[in-house]
């Protein structure tokens, strides 16, 4: 029984993987574009899951770190002529450090207080992107961003090369997160989610590990932002507003928080629903709300929970 479950999962994984590999060759460029968005959102929700799904604190500012990475990377390449290949790790590291600076005081708060703080911090960062016109171009956006410089003879000005670049980073990031949540560190942050006082009493430095989870989660969002900036080549503050943060929260809840694979599927599902709803933009938010409420009522553990119920028969 167990082995058949495992092999079913493996087959699903293999099919997904093959599909992802061949998509640029069989689908229209519009579909490829949507899949790129879905991969970027998968990276955001998977990195968000490390903090909220595994360590516990509910955060509403993931898009702020996404934006910070995007603007850092874009500005580094635009203003200093730095290569994308250097700007990407530098933006990731900067956002990681910035996350530590923000997380250290903010995570002294617990529960709702922390959530509300991140909500306002997210909005604050949006206002910073919007109002530092000399740097970010404000509401006019930041254009002229160059695609990644070609390496190994691969030219990144087209859609297909960017697709594979982002796919590779997506797979690397998910692999990294998978290793992390299954490591000793992963067990310690889960103990904080389950019972912070008990975790502290058995010797877990809860303050430190919460900030570390927060910073890693932020840094990975920063790397995703850098990839987005050089793929989309135009940044606008509204991309990184609280609506995006909320969307990431919805993706994670729809998929199933604390499962890693759930949020990735959630990101895919939500991205495609939103794209299909393009003909009626106002309705998108209604659909969103209904989706979220439906999931929370039917199965709070999300799609991953529904899957577990079907497979496990309970």
């Amino acid at each position, binding site marked *: 029984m167990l082995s058949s479950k495992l092999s079913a999962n493996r087959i699903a994984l293999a099919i997904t993987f093959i599909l992802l590999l061949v998509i640029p060759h069989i689908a229209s460029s519009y579909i490829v574009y949507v899949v790129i968005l879905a991969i970027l959102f998968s990276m955001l929700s998977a990195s968000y899951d490390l903090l909220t799904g595994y360590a516990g604190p509910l955060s509403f500012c993931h898009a702020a770190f996404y934006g910070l990475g995007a603007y850092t990377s874009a500005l580094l390449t635009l203003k200093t002529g730095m290569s994308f290949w250097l700007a990407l790790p530098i933006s990731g590291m900067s956002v990681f450090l910035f996350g530590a600076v923000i997380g250290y005081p903010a995570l002294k708060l617990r529960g709702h207080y922390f959530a509300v703080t991140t909500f306002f911090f997210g909005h604050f960062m949006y206002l910073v992107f919007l109002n530092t016109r000399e740097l970010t171009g404000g509401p006019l956006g930041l254009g002229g961003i160059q695609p990644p410089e070609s390496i190994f003879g691969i030219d990144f000005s087209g859609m297909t090369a960017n697709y594979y670049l982002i796919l590779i980073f997506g797979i690397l990031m998910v692999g990294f997160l998978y290793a992390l949540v299954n*490591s*000793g560190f992963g067990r*310690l942050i889960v*103990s904080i989610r389950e019972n912070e*006082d*008990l975790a502290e009493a058995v010797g877990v430095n809860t303050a430190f590990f919460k900030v570390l989870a927060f910073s890693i989660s932020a840094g990975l969002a920063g790397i995703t932002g850098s990839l987005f900036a050089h793929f989309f080549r135009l940044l606008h503050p509204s991309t990184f507003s609280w609506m995006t943060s909320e969307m990431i929260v919805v993706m994670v809840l729809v998929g199933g928080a604390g499962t890693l694979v759930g949020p990735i599927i959630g990101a895919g599902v939500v991205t495609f629903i939103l794209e299909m709803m393009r003909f009626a933009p106002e309705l998108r938010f209604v659909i969103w709300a209904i989706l979220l409420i439906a999931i929370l009522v039917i199965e709070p553990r999300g799609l991953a929970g529904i899957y577990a119920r079907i497979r496990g028969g309970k």
Partner: protein
Amino acid sequence: MRDLLVLKDLTKKFGGVTAAKDVNLNLQGGMRLGIIGPNGAGKTTLFNMITGEIKPTSGTIEFEGEPIHGLKPHQISKKGIGRTFQIVRVFDEISVYDNVLIGAVARKLHFRPTQEQHHHVDEIIELTGLGEYRNVMAENLTVSAKKRVGLATALATKPRLLLLDELMAGLTFVEIDEMLELLRKINGEMGITLVVVEHVMKAVMELCENIVVISSGQKIAEGSPGEITNNKKVVDIYLGEGSK
């Protein structure tokens, strides 16, 4: 022999309420000490000061000759003091095995828990009789089993001193006897010093070599179980003055 734990003039005030007043205590390694006293006497406050959950207003705590007052709970746990809680606490939504493993991983973090750590967890699960619940989610257990999970997780941190806060409360007589046997093993075979706060007198009298009585935040008596049962002050506090 040097004392394992030394409390010196330990005082805790919550606003106008004095929960502990000038408590002095010397505890030798390997002992089984009981702390008893009426409800609200300050027993849990004493525990919380030793484990760093609350900071003493004044006074000092030394563990193995080192001052530990002012340290955070996780630092004190790493020094070798484990505890269980009066209101049972477990990591609810993970398995019993993972609960205990967290104790081991918290003690020493490796990127992957080592074979030795898994081995240690297996031994503790065996010792505490949790084998059948190994893969059960902790929140689905009975109170008695949860208490053993709490104890097992504390043991996984390899403590030299274990503070047990009302471990027997809510257990049946049979379960109390089993728990007493387990505690004697932990003390005798593993050499872990025990301090128990307990309302179940039978358990304290059977288990402990030494008993401290606390009332209104002050230590009013200390001695062997025999001495304590014949102490007039203690009898007055428990049964009211003039009884007998």
